[in-house]
């Protein structure tokens, strides 16, 4: 199925230790941002963006902290292009361009409200990449098979919602 391969996925084990990784890694990014003349808030923003990219890349480098710092440096240079000669970038790290959602925030909000339970389930499968067994446990399904069946129902429901709400599809595009 297309959905299975198209989403960038996060490593669940790393997600589970997110507070530890945060505490361990943020100081290096903060130190970098400080040296570049940024504020604490700049450090937080760049760090959060770097963490999101890191999880979505679904990689497990030997040194996650160094990798996240590498992403943060790329993000800093992207934001403050004039600093590009002051920052040594790791060329092995490629940061993605952000995709623009092809629907309006209004429609998205409607979908979030009307289909929250399904979105929770789908993001657990596709974004957090939890196993069906784990999802069955978290969402109180009797077994992994039930969770998987519900996942496909939710995908269908979301497709139908988008289709229905987007009858005048172009009207919803911002």
């Amino acid at each position: 199925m297309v959905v299975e391969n198209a989403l960038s996925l996060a490593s669940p084990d790393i997600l589970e230790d997110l507070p530890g990784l945060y505490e361990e890694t943020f100081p290096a990014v903060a130190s970098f941002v400080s040296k570049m003349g940024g504020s604490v808030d700049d450090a937080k923003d760049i760090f959060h963006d770097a963490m999101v990219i890191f999880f979505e890349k679904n990689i497990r480098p030997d040194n996650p902290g160094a990798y996240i710092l590498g992403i943060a440096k790329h993000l800093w240079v992207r934001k403050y292009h004039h600093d590009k000669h002051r920052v040594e970038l790791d060329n092995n790290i490629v940061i993605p361009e952000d995709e623009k959602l092809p629907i309006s925030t209004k429609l998205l909000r409607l979908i979030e409200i009307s289909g929250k339970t399904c979105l929770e389930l789908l993001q657990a499968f596709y974004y957090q990449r939890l196993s069906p067994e784990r999802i069955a446990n978290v969402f109180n399904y009797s077994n992994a098979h039930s969770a998987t069946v519900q996942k496909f129902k939710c995908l269908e429901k979301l497709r139908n919602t988008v289709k229905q709400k987007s009858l005048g599809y172009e009207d919803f595009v911002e």
Partner: protein
Amino acid sequence: MKTSLNETVLLIVKYYGRKKLRARLESIHENLFTDPVKISFRERILRMFQ
């Protein structure tokens, strides 16, 4: 931009997962900067910006 229904659904799920992750990061940050147990961490960071 023409986007297929499947792609739109994928992006919505990704957007939602990302939003949850960002909320979790915010919560961890808030905790690190307000929890008395983490005062040395907070001070260490703030010293960098003095």
